[in-house]
């Protein structure tokens, strides 16, 4: 899990920004309403809440998503906020690429 991605903050974010993102996240996804997302946010926050934690995470973190390279791609996509819609021209190219497979 990329905690920065989960919290929606850049890797250079400081304590206050990370905490704010966490609080916003758990307000939007409370444990009663969305326990999975709540837990993911809490786990992410614990990994990067302080400067020491961020250093530790950068240097010695051993966690990763996916059991295969494709699984890693899938997990990465799931973590991303939904990408912006493809523009009409890009959508046209996308659909034509899909027709080839």
């Amino acid at each position, binding site marked *: 899990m*990329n905690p*920065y*991605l989960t919290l929606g903050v850049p*890797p*250079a974010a400081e304590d206050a920004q990370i905490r704010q993102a966490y609080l916003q996240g758990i307000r939007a996804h409370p444990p009663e309403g969305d326990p999975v997302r709540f837990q993911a946010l809490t786990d992410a926050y614990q990994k990067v809440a302080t*400067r*020491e934690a*961020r*250093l*530790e995470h*950068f*240097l*010695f*973190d*051993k*966690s*990763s*998503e*996916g*059991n*295969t*390279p*494709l*699984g*890693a*791609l*899938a*997990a*990465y*996509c*799931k*973590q*991303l906020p*939904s*990408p*912006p*819609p*493809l*523009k*009409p021209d*890009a*959508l*046209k190219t*996308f*659909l*034509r*690429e*899909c*027709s080839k*497979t």
Partner: protein
Amino acid sequence: MQKPQQPTTAPQEKERIAAKELAAGHFRKARDLYKELCKIDRPRFLGLLVEANQGLVSQMIQKGQYSEAVQVRNYLKTIAPAGALFGMDLDLALKIQDWPEALRAALGLWSLPAGAKNGGRIADAIVLCCPTEEEMASFPAPLAQEAALIFGALQDAGESRFDAVALKLRPLGASSIFASWKTFLKGMAAFHSDQMGKAQTLFKMLPEESLAARAARAYAFFIAGEEALEGASASAQTQLLHGGLRLLGQTTYEAALGRAQECWKAGKLSDSYRELRAVAAFPSLDGGLAGALSDFYFKGCFSLGWASRELFIRHMEDLLLSAPVKGDQEACSLARMLLTASLSGYNGSHPRFFLEKFEKHYKGTTPALGELLSLGYYRITQCLMGDEELYRKDEVEDIHLEQLREHAMELLEKSIETNPGHLAAHLAHASLSRSLFDRRRQVHLLDALCKRFPKEKAVFLLAGTVHLEADRPDYALAASYLDTALGLDPFDTEALQKQAHARVQAAVKAYTAGQLAEGRLHFGMIALHHSRQGGSFALSEEYTQVRQGVLETLFGDPKQGRTLLEQGFCNSGSVPALLLFQHACQVLWAKKQDPKKPLLKRLQEQPPQSAAERASLLAMLLHVREWGSASQRAAWTAEHEAVGKCLLPLAGDAFSETECATLLPQLAEVFLLLPLAKAIAKTGVKRAPGRVFFQAAHYTLTTKHHRESQRAKLEIYRESSLSDGDKEALKFITSQLERLTKFYTFDDAWEEVKPARRSPAKKKKPSCAKAKKPASPEKPKKPEKQAPGPFPIQIELF
């Protein structure tokens, strides 16, 4: 010489063979035969010739032979009616991406009577061809209006106008050929509005092999993550891969990631990494897709099985050491991974080597290099000190331990040098300096730390501890540091305990030296931070009251001392305190305080009578213990030790039967009070010789080692207690049986197998009273010596 003439096949035979070839899908052969047959009877065989050619074209399209398919199609145009070729034209045009031709064929297909049956194909083709508004205007109704709605909705979706999408799609009914595209666009709008559940439901409604369904698969990773892969075939997974990368705009990974996936699934982990390495942006320490895939290889390897992990890490180490690395990003990623591996037990190069490699190649600014290096050196030190623990156990020579500590010190100094604000490194450095440097230097280091980190509790706690645990403790100085620590965190238990101990010790010194004001001040400082605690008596306000009461009685104001002692004991619920209330004051108290007689002898002769006397007795006992162990560490076992040592000589005849029965179960659980428990058990046997409870307690407590035979004996006692209806006895014996099972130690096992030896002569215990001893109660028989047997199965290590 004339060639021998080939026998001519009869037309009927040719027809038969042609039909057979056509049915078997051998379109080329069937076409050639029908060509010949058309020369004989064109009207009859023309249709079949067209069919054979159509089949051939389809086959060529499937094989990707597009140019050959175009040639055959061009030939077909000369012999077949136009209407028969629209479907084939459409397939071919889509394959070769000839959009104008595809649009023409789609509209042609629509114009046929059975055109509606191909509605899905036609709709897909129109969407792919992206006709202009003028072209759409020329479409037959209702295609023109429906196509305009769909393209309008596509435009709105691309520009995030999802409300407009919903409006535009509303007129399209379920019978429209664009129904799938309506569902797709609704799903797309839901996805980009963060309504993942709705998007997933809509995408699942799409016809399986439609273009819309293939496009929708691209969203699967974003909606379901890895779950999208479950149960998917290899080709479906490939579609997911391509779709996801297209939506991410990262199509450069398509080929490499596909190959990497195949290698990984085949167990060729290093090859998998090598495939992905071909992509320019990979690996990366930064985020994004490259970062995510890098994490998979450099961190995910730690969750592999041991053999695979070792092999993979070995390969990566070779890559770092021998092969040319791809760049700084790869070198850093490798060094970081190998540093973590070496600190986790991987037997490769020294972790310091990897840290230095990381330092050489790291070009980032967040986090800062200095902080990372500081952490790295600190962790290597921790690893070394962990090794020291092992070396101690293996009894390695001191010189090796000395070298280890010096190495650790050097690393800590590097850690501090690269990040002077690294508190943990400073603390570790100060702690380690205890074993390497003289005290003065260590104190100097600690003082400097306190100035540097005035808001850090851990620094003041360490400083206080060092002064407290020195060979010649400076209690007052320790207390001042600990007061600061408590000022920063009033609820830190360790600081509370140590501060109280330091202050009490300092107070003892002050009182003894006649400095009453200073002594009282120390107790006042304790009272600032401590409160009435329901837990340990030794941490409570009552305990400090008692301690101060002792000192006031002896060196200060005896009246004040007595008041404090009474307050302390009246409020205390501690078992040892109650013990002393109940026993020592009932039986023994020195009415005449003869300073020439030892305290304990005085207590034996004259038991205390009043509450005040009882309180004073405890105070005196604690004080005796205090002088006896002035150089010991924090006295939080003071209550147990005091009671154990001081009451033991008093135990004989001091307790009634009821008191013995009440006390034994509690005392038997406390290691330090076992001698007292034995004495009380003996007293209990005297008081009630026939009672199984005391017999069992005496037997259990006086037997040196637990043996299997004891279990049998205790079972007998248990049966007796059941028949007597002695619940107290039953409860006690049951608990002893459980202990026997749970705490069978190696010593006990050794006792089973070691050679028999002579038991030492029993020492005569001092009698507690001058009165004649009553007749000895029935003693349980000693179990017979058994031949050493195998180690019992139940051994619990603790």
